[in-house]
């Protein structure tokens, strides 16, 4: 867009032979914009668009930031839950560990009246042969037997035997947790028949 173009039509033609016009005050002149220039002129609408755009961006950013910090609270809450869950997993694992300890199992087995046979005898499944010399286990011949557990386990303090728990369930259920482990007498209910193990009738 050149100045030449814009000013060209404004030059007066100079005709030869005519008397030189008197110098007059130059008329006020104005630059007439071409069509392209007219189109390029900024309008209010554009300004509005830009402002609205920036506004939208700011709102979006604000919304994003709100969402993000809301996410932070969600994460925080979930992390807390996760920690709590991890703690209960740890607690249950510890409980399981102490209950699965051989001291506890043996004590409970013997409290339930189980005995061990120190005399190993094998039954060969293929031909039903008995290898070894079978002999009945004596009553009360548990590994712990009369001496009680000789292998300490500090974690088992206050853990009741299953026999104590079941006796407790029928009676007062409150005192069990606090009472220390006591060597319970083997359960021998005189009312129960000793023979007749529950066995499935398979044919």
């Amino acid at each position, binding site marked *: 867009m050149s100045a030449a173009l814009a000013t060209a039509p404004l030059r007066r033609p100079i005709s030869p032979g005519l008397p030189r016009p008197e110098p007059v005050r130059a008329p006020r002149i104005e630059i007439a914009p071409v069509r392209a220039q007219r189109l390029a002129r900024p309008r209010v609408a554009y300004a509005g668009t830009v402002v609205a755009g920036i506004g939208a961006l700011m709102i979006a950013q604000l919304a994003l930031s709100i969402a993000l910090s809301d996410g*932070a609270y969600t*994460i925080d809450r979930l992390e807390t839950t996760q920690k709590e869950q991890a*703690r209960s997993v740890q607690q249950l694992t510890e409980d399981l*560990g102490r209950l699965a300890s051989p001291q506890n199992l043996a004590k409970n087995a013997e409290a339930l009246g189980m005995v061990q046979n*120190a005399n*190993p005898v094998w039954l060969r499944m293929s031909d039903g042969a008995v290898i070894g010399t079978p002999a009945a286990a004596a009553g009360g011949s548990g590994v712990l037997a009369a*001496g009680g557990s*000789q292998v*300490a386990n500090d974690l088992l303090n206050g853990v009741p035997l299953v026999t104590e728990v079941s006796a407790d369930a029928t009676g007062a259920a409150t005192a069990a947790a606090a009472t220390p482990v006591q060597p319970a007498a083997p359960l021998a209910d005189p009312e129960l028949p000793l023979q007749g193990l529950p066995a499935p009738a398979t044919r």
Partner: protein
Amino acid sequence: MTRRSARRRIALSALLLVAILGTFLIRLVDIQVVHADALNAQAEDKRSIPQVILGERGDIFDSTGVLLADSVLRYDITASPKYAVTSTDVPPETAAEQLAPIVGVPAAKLVKVLRDAVAENPDSDYAYLAKKVDAQQFEQVRALGIPWVYYEAHAGRTYPNGAVAGNLLGFVGSQNEAQAGVELADDSCLAGTDGSEVYERSADDVRIPGSTVVTTPAVDGRDLILTIDRDLQWFVQQTLASYAKKFGAKWGTVVVQEVKSGKLLAVADYPSVDPNNVNATVQSPDPALGSRAFTAPFEPGSTFKTLTAASLLDARLVTPATHVLAPYRFTTPDGADVNDSEYHGDMSLTLTGVLKESSNTGLSQLGLRMTPEQRYAYMRAFGLGARTEVDFGAEATGDLNSGPDWDAQSNLATMFGQGLTVTAVQMASIYQTIGNGGVRLPVSLVAGCRLADGTLTDTPATEGTRVISATAARETVDMLENVATKGWLADQVAIPGYRLATKTGTAQQPDGHGGYTKSYLVSLAGIAPADDPQYVVSVSLADPVKMNTSGAAAPIFHDVTTQVLKQFGVVPSGSSSPDLPTNY
């Protein structure tokens, strides 16, 4: 308005502007340059919270995958005394009443802690209410929601099986630092390294997203796998402790070793430590915090005759049927003087008979067929006088008493296990070598260090060394079978259906001043089943005052061996022990 006054006003404004700008500039430089570091640090302190990421200590498992030592979190309950005493919502007395039943500390004591702290320092902001409470107690305390109570998590250690293998595992201290046993010996495998992170926190204690910076990542420790079988270890400890109490023994050990791998399946000590409560052991009259089987060498006595006999057989200097006339007392020209434990007339014994009768005089005569240097070389080859491959903490080497330059008396005494010391594990290793056809395998207690991806590192050496010939080893086992079937403890030791090879020992213990005390170390070592040796069981009881003979070790050996055969499913072979002549 004159032009002059206007100019003055402009100048004044400019001056003012410069002055204000200058002030800002100076302040800006002051903040941004001069005090920048200090202010930055202050700001960081306000917002960013450094935090330790705990590197978890590895777990310890037995050979079957049972957890023996577990890393857990424990919590210290702390309080801010200055806020506690001024709190109107929850005064110390009310809180203490609620806390006391949970943490197991008397309420009065909790209140006293808080009041004392404030009395000493009115600004006191930190006091311990309870240390190392578990997760359950922690949750209960947290649920109370006392505003001036705080918490700190620590790495802790728990041993679910208590004293089972406690002697081997060892324990950790209050800062979770390894103090004994494999915890200490294999600390490089187990120990984790704490990391650290920094994050920024909003006013309401919520972590600002994206602000976490891990400055040092935490490295978890690796798991340690032992060769021990938890159930067998428990059975052996229970059995040993029962009999040791019955016979009034001071201490005792039982070692169960697998013949064909050299792995220790059970190493029981009496008394033993419960790593969950080390203090209880420390306060006991004769505390044993480690494993005497590794750390307490003793004069073994007659169980050692097996080694001498096996050496003689390997050197082809004798056969199981070699004749020797065994008197009650035997003296040598250079001044050695040995006798048997009980008076007897001259006995016409074979080498088998010498072992069966456990004759010192018979064995001394046969042993003299070998030079001290030769015998010493055999002892070293059997692994004596050196720590085993286990390299347990404070493991003893045993003392071969300046061999092979023994004096005349020691030269004979060392043939039947006096005048030298071995550990219980070394003794088991001797029988392992003989059971394994003369090839000694490295003794192992740790099967390896397990990385997170499951690969095992630091696995023990498995290459054996031949100590004696396969023939000599088999002949030795045959002779020991005759000891088991014909010896004086035959009835107590026998397990119906199985062939056993055993040797007893009753060794007088030195008094530390060159003489011997009246206390004995009774022992019984054996191999089962003898027809296809798989397990070594070695029992030692120190000073069983109620039964001063190896008869005290016999029931332990019997019960433990039975359990071993049962647990590992060893089926009776049906063959019977060879019948070797013991007399001529």
